[in-house]
Each structure stands twice: as structure tokens, then as C-alpha cells.
């Protein structure tokens, strides 16, 4: 069991996380979901005992992570955002080094190394120097070092970052296999990755825990949430920066509960609206009456995406 109680972290005077509290049961696969800067990496680094929290406590496998980080580290495998690789080392030597650091004997390592190389599909490159490997292989070596000592808890920070679509699927399958024997925490801002891999989600936004539960539970808790994506271009005679006006217009539409920060896409500016009903007609009317060009209008995608936008949009609005 992993238990975080009122966990917080400040960098200088700036709050990066918390206070947040959550529990993760043994055998669960939990996804940390949040935008960049939401505090996911900070939370995971604290759980991996890489960072000390500014406040609160963590308990991992019954051991206090603040008082006895040394003991906790024995139970944890951590794959950070950038895999902690020694580029000059041969893959198998590096994994042996990682295993020895975690207290494994040579006999244990001999047996486990073959298993881990097979699990992570690294057998063919076991004798290669790490810097000669592709990004996908390096990510696998990073994962291999995290599981070499067969830890009870596995913490993976953006494990599919920078991978191509094929490698993403392979990594996802690998994590699926690891779920059978480990308690896994994964952070990501890729919604599909999280929804396909995790039993439960912890949604973070600006250091706060915005929601927790399964994808379905979150959606139910938040009410039936729909999403409208509207892409707009400034019409003739409109302001050069029409975004504030457009946002005000969209927020005023009956049925729209929140509007996330817009982004430029496809020759226009895209606004993502969280709504409680299908109000496409009202949205399109508001855009046209506001003398803006309506380029595209999309309605309701996945359940998780809606929930996420709604939760994160809520925290944006409150800030």
C-alpha cells in the first residue's frame, strides 16, 4: 500500500505540489494525469524518495518514506522522465550495476538479468553500448533497470515520452504485463495511454488533486460531461487578437460550464468547451453573431477526455 498524507513540495517559495492525500492499494495500476506543470513528476519523485517533501508524509509498503527513505528505495523501481542511463556502458553491465546497487547478489543477478532482458525484449542488444541504441531501446533499458530487482512498487514517469507509435504500443503492452506482478504508478498527459493502462486515475492540476477514481467513476461523479471543440478565425473587421472577445462570447453561451485556454490549430484558434448538454447550435450562433469565422465544430469525444478537460478547466478558471 502507498499512502500519501498532506504531501506538499515547494521549490523556493513556489508551490509545486499539494497538499495532496491519496492511497494506492497493492496490485493497483494508478495513473497520474495532469497537464505539464501539474505536479506529477514532483509527486512521483517524492514517492521514489528522490526528493524530500516540504510537508506531509508518505508510507510505502508500511515504511515511512520520509524517516526511512533507504528502506523504501529497496521496494521501489523508478523510471524517470529521462531514463537514468550511463551512455558509455554496455546494456547488460548497466543492468548488473543497477541490480547490485539495489542489493542483489551475483547469483540472483545472473538469473534475473536473463528474465529482464526477455521481458523488455533487450536480449538482442544486451552487448551493445547504450549510446548506440535508439530512443525506444533506451527507454526499455530505463524500464529494465527499474524492474531488475523485482520491486513491489513500480513508478513510471511518462514512460512513452518521445516514442513513435509502434514503440508506444510495445511499451504499453510491456506495462500491461508488469501490472500482473507489480503495483504500478504511471504519469502521463496522454489520456488514451492512461485510460488503456490504469485501473484508477489521480487527476492533478496546478499541484492539487482534482479527482480520483476509475474513468467511469470520475465521469459519473462529475455529471454527464460533454465537450465541444470550436475552431474560430477572426472575421473581417474583428480585432487582431480576438481571443479574449471570443472567449467571453463562448463563456456567455447558455450550457457552457467552462472554457479551457485556446490554442492555435489548423489555421484558426481552437477553444475546448465543457458543457452539460449539446449546445452546438447556440455556440455556432454566438460565433457568427460575434462576427467571427467558424472553421470547425466538434462534439463530445472520449469520456476521459471530457472529464479531464472539465476538471483541469475548472482549476484554470479558479486561478
Amino acid at each position, binding site marked *: 500500500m502507498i499512502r500519501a498524507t498532506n504531501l506538499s513540495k515547494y*521549490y523556493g517559495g513556489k508551490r509545486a505540489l499539494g497538499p495532496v492525500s491519496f492511497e494506492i492499494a497493492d496490485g493497483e495500476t494508478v495513473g497520474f494525469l495532469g497537464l505539464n506543470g501539474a505536479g506529477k513528476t514532483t509527486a512521483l519523485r517524492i514517492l*521514489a*524518495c*528522490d*526528493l*524530500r517533501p516540504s510537508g506531509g508524509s508518505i508510507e510505502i509498503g508500511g515504511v515511512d518514506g520520509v524517516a526511512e527513505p*533507504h*528502506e523504501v*528505495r*529497496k521496494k*521501489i523501481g*523508478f523510471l*524517470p522522465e*529521462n*531514463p*537514468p*542511463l*550511463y*551512455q*558509455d*556502458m554496455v546494456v547488460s*553491465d548497466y543492468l548488473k*550495476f*543497477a541490480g*547490485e*546497487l*539495489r*542489493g542483489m547478489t551475483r547469483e540472483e543477478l545472473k538469473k534475473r538479468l536473463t528474465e529482464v532482458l526477455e521481458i523488455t525484449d533487450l536480449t538482442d542488444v544486451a552487448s551493445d553500448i547504450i549510446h548506440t541504441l535508439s530512443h525506444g531501446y533506451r527507454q526499455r533499458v530505463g524500464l529494465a*533497470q527499474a524492474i531488475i530487482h523485482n520491486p513491489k512498487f513500480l513508478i513510471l514517469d511518462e514512460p512513452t515520452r518521445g516514442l513513435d507509435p509502434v514503440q508506444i504500443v510495445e511499451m504499453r503492452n510491456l506495462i500491461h504485463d508488469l501490472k500482473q506482478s507489480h503495483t504500478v504508478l504511471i504519469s502521463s498527459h496522454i489520456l488514451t495511454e492512461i485510460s488503456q493502462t490504469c485501473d484508477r486515475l489521480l487527476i492533478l492540476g496546478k499541484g492539487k488533486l482534482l479527482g480520483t477514481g476509475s474513468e467511469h467513476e470520475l465521469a459519473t461523479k462529475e455529471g454527464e460531461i460533454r465537450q465541444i471543440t470550436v475552431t474560430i478565425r477572426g472575421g473581417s473587421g474583428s480585432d487582431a487578437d480576438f481571443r479574449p472577445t471570443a472567449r467571453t462570447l463562448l463563456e456567455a453561451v447558455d450550457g457552457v460550464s467552462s472554457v479551457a485556454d485556446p490554442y492555435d490549430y489548423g489555421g484558426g484558434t481552437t477553444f475546448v468547451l465543457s458543457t452539460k448538454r449539446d449546445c452546438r447550435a447556440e455556440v455556432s450562433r454566438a460565433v457568427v453573431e460575434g462576427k467571427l469565422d467558424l472553421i470547425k465544430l466538434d462534439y463530445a469525444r472520449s469520456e476521459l477526455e471530457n472529464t479531464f478537460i472539465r476538471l483541469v478547466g475548472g482549476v484554470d478558471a479558479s486561478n
Partner: protein
Amino acid sequence: MRATRIILRRELGAYLRSPFAWVIAFVLLLIDGILFQSQALAGEQLSAIVLEKFFWTSSGIAMAAGLLLSFRLISEERQNHSLVLLNTSPVRDAEIVVGKFLAAFVFLGVLLVLSLYMPLLIKVNGKISGAQIIVGYLGLLLIGSAALAIGMFASALAKNQLVAGVAATAMLFLMVLLFPFAKKLGDPVRPILQDLDLWWVHFQSGFMRGVLNLKDIVYYVAVTYFFLLLSVKALEAKRWQ
């Protein structure tokens, strides 16, 4: 201790694989050799004086080697993100620091051994005692280890290698220049600062001349220990930042 041994082994392997370490060794030995030749061939001199001059230049080489071998030890790992592996393994910060220090110390020792042919040439062609050579080399090892520890501390503090290199060089210069700086000050600061100087009092007046003083040995061991301790504290502090 087990983790220290594991880290020491990996670091030594890294030195063997790294062209950087061998380039440092080659360049420093080349400079040492050129300086030795220019001193040894500079007219008729007592062999003891030639040996003193050799240790004079070699002490600079040992300090430079100490700095060059140490300033990357932690800052490079921080920059390459590999430090996370050590930080999230059941390894104490002291074991990381000592493991890395010992590896650099061994490499420094190898580098100094490779320069041994020069005093041996003096011994063959002149009249010096083996003890004088041993004392001088002990001094080189000690002053080199102090420079290593200073570089390690800068490396533990800095976010990148460049900053670590500059900080380590500045700290080392400060430690070496304490003696001439203290001359301008009055009592009781002057003798204290002079005793803290890294080179003039403890190396030039002792090891360089073949004089073995326990206080000089204690001084270098203390400086090395102090900066290694600061390195451990700097690593610990980084976890709180």
C-alpha cells in the same frame, strides 16, 4: 561499504572507457615531462634541487589533475540524469561521494606512478635518497586528494559541469593563495590563514623538500575529509530543494 565498492568499480571502468580521462593523463604527463626536462637540463645543479623543482611543478600537475578528474563527478551525472539511479537506490549519499572519490583517487595515483620515471632518472644520475622520493610522492597524493575533494564539492553543488569547473578552480586558487594573502594581515588572523594554505606551508616547506611532518599529513587528510563531508551535505541538501 558494499555500495561504495560497486560505485568505485563502475567509476574506474568509466575512466578506462573515457577518452577524456586519458587525454587529461596524456596532457598533464606531457607538460610534467617538458617542465622536468627544462629544469634538469638547466645547467649544473645539485640533484636534490632538481628533485625539489620536479615536485614543485608536479604539485601543480597533481592539483590540476585533481580538479579535472573531479569537477564532472556529480555535475555530469546530474546533467545526464543518471544521478537519479543512485539517488533512488538504497545507497547513502556518503557512499556515492566516497565511491566516486576513491575511483578518482586511484586514477590520480596511476597518473602519478606514470611520472615516477623522472625522479628515478635523477636517482640514477645523482645523489638522492629513495625516502625523499617517497615523501614527495606522498605529498603529491595528499595535495591531489585535497584538490579532488574540493572539485567534488563544487561538482555536488553545481547544476552543470561548467559552473562546477569554474567554482572548483576558484576554490583551489583561494586555498593556494591564502598564504601570500595572509602576509598582509596582522595577528591573530595571519598565522591561522597561513596554516590553512594548501600549498606553501604544508607542501613547499614539507613534502617538497623531503621533510615528513605529521601535521602536514593531518592537514591534507582533514581538508579532504572536510570537503568530502561538504559534498555529502550538498547532495543531501539538493533533495530538499
